[in-house]
């Protein structure tokens, strides 16, 4: 018995091994190395990489330092983007998925149309929208003018228009992905539950509220988590469309980290900034887990 158990544990490890090797090499090791780098003044092109202890972290937290304002500005930019894009990317794709789940002619075309933008790379999306949204020579302002709306909005270089543009483009670009996940979740809900709800006299709103939403809870939690992480990692859109303008107001945390670490080669400071961002994300993930758990608990009781 115990031999059998041990050998089955061995088989389990054997099957897990390929993933663990990849996970160790490409996730675990870099995380640990990143922590190590963050304790140094690390420029990989220079022979000397002096150990500086927590100086990189202290710099990022002390208001007098030259990195303080740019870093926290970028964290704020990431925060603003996340706060506005995540709710939209949770609600809009759900609505789209509900529509996709109906039976109607041309349903497949409808599904494809919403998913199509997600196939594009961020460079394509960024460049195309940069041209379209140009304040003076862009198509968007031109058409807005033609139908009599304000045609002088600086979508790429003024606030809050730049946030509207960045959030809007991101929602347009990625909502198809979230919608497909919701759709899979919707198709998993047993028809019997709806039948039972109908028997109990539930209308379509009541069955959405009491059957669809609770059944989707695990899916919604997953969508929420990956959307928060994706939004907090936003870089390409602002890098290409606004280049951080106006000033550095739309320069996100990842933008700052990439510029500091990969362009200026101040990798110690960039690693420290990454760790701070990571801790924020971990905290947020725990809160999201807690929120969904709590709701799960009250429903069950």
């Amino acid at each position, binding site marked *: 018995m115990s031999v059998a158990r041990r050998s089955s544990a061995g088989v389990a490890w054997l099957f897990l091994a390929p993933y663990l090797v990849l996970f160790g090499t490409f996730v675990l090791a870099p995380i640990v190395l990143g922590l190590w780098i963050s304790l140094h003044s690390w420029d990989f*092109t*220079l022979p000397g*990489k002096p150990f500086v202890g927590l100086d990189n972290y202290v710099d990022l937290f002390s208001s007098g330092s030259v990195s303080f304002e740019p870093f926290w500005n970028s964290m704020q930019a990431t925060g603003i983007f996340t706060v506005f894009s995540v709710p939209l990317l949770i609600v809009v794709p759900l609505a789209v998925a509900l529509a996709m789940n109906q039976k109607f002619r041309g349903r497949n075309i409808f599904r494809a149309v919403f998913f199509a933008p997600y196939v594009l790379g961020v460079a394509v999306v960024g460049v195309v929208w940069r041209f379209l949204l*140009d304040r003076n020579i862009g198509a968007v302002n031109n058409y807005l003018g033609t139908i009599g709306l304000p045609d002088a909005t*600086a979508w*790429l270089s003024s606030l809050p228009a730049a946030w509207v543009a960045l959030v809007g483009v991101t929602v347009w670009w990625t909502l198809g992905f979230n919608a497909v996940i919701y759709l899979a979740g919707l198709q998993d809900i047993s028809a019997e539950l709806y039948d039972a709800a109908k028997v109990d006299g539930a209308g379509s709103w009541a069955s959405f509220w009491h059957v669809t939403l609770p059944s989707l809870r695990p899916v919604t939690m997953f969508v929420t988590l990956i959307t928060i992480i994706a939004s907090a990692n936003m870089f390409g859109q602002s890098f290409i469309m606004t280049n951080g303008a106006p*000033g*550095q107001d739309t320069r996100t945390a990842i933008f700052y980290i990439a510029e500091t670490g990969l362009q200026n080669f101040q990798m110690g400071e960039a690693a420290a900034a990454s760790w701070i961002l990571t801790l924020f994300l971990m905290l947020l993930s725990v809160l999201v887990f807690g929120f969904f758990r709590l709701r799960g608990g009250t429903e069950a009781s």
Partner: protein
Amino acid sequence: MNRTPLFTKKNQSALSRRGFLGLTAGGLLVAGCGGGQGAGTAPQEEGVGGFTGEEYSGPDLSLAYWNGFTGGDGPAMQQLVKDFTAEHDNIQIKNNTVDWADFYQRLPAAAQAGKGPDVGAMHLDQLATNAARNVIVPLDDLAEALGLAEEDFTASVWGPGIYQDARYGIPLDVHTIAMYYNMDHFEKAGISEAPTDAASLEDACKKLQASGIKNPFWMPNQWPAHLMFLSLLWQFGGEPYAEDGSAATYDDEAGEQALTWMREQVEKGYSPDNVDIDAQYTAFKNGQNSITWDGIWQINDLEDSGLNYGIAPLPVIGDELAAWANSHHFFMTAQAADDADRANAGKTFIGWMSDQSAAWSDAGMIPARNSAREDAKFTDSPQAALGDQIEALHFLPPVPGLGDVQVPTLEVAVNEGVLGKTAPAEALSKAASNATELMGKNLEKFGG
């Protein structure tokens, strides 16, 4: 983990350099360089590497050559490479063209991994940075063997190629920004001459507006806005940085005047608000505006567009003619210096290329060599119209890491100033104090 290879690499290069000296010390007799011009002046003493100017005659090999000529200058460079390989049977050139923005990120990483180029071209203001990072090696021996001397060049392009008493780059060209104008618009507005100062520029703008061009002169707030700012700063008598790399000094009266003038073009309505990335240039090509300041590397693109355009020196807005300039320099990497054959072949390549300075006018550039600027290749080119401006060019000082400092400081200040988000003086003083602090860190990091 990263440390060991780095140290051994340094030792290796020192060792093989000594070996290389021994190998080539006897080569003084055969001084028939592929260059011509300076071949007679054989060096009296060996520079680093001891290159003597003779053609590479060793076994066949292939050199990795990296550059960022992705624009209108790309085809001209490919032609030069083709010509070189046609003349040199024993040297193959593996040309790798990367966008300049990525180039400076990839080069140190690739060199570090031993997968970088043997030779390449980079901007003058990047030489010090890459020298401090041990990516590139001194080329004094090559400069000497080619008979290159300061008199052959405008002094301002020669000096910044020297970092810590060693020369790291061989100049190919000089490029600057110029004023482009739409000839059809000028004719319609009744302007016969390109503006030469602030008053005539303003006068031209007014006439153009009267002739129906609502915003004749678009003021960018991103690239190349900071190049315009630097040009104006020099025109008003300012200096952007202390020569020793210890401080940013553009937050003085000259800087304020420069940035204020840029913002004024928007406030007076010559430029629309919020000119987004590249819009001023696209609009110029579309005939939506009439005047734009941009790099002379756009010449080929404008020629191809069929626009009836003119090119002229920047107007003197400040007290005297001055313009920002940069230069493409050839470099050799530590990787190539490790191997006597590669080093010699690399230097042969650079020496030959440096002699094509005049042919390089086809790329829209200004030859770095004084003599090449008398060549018909150049005098017949559109950029020859810049005339006096070529004597009034200013380069950034050779300070390691300066380019990277500029992105989050000066470029942001110019952006905010032109957008009208922050008052010019305030934007510049904040940027300069941040830049000074970052420069101090760099001095420490690169060991002054």
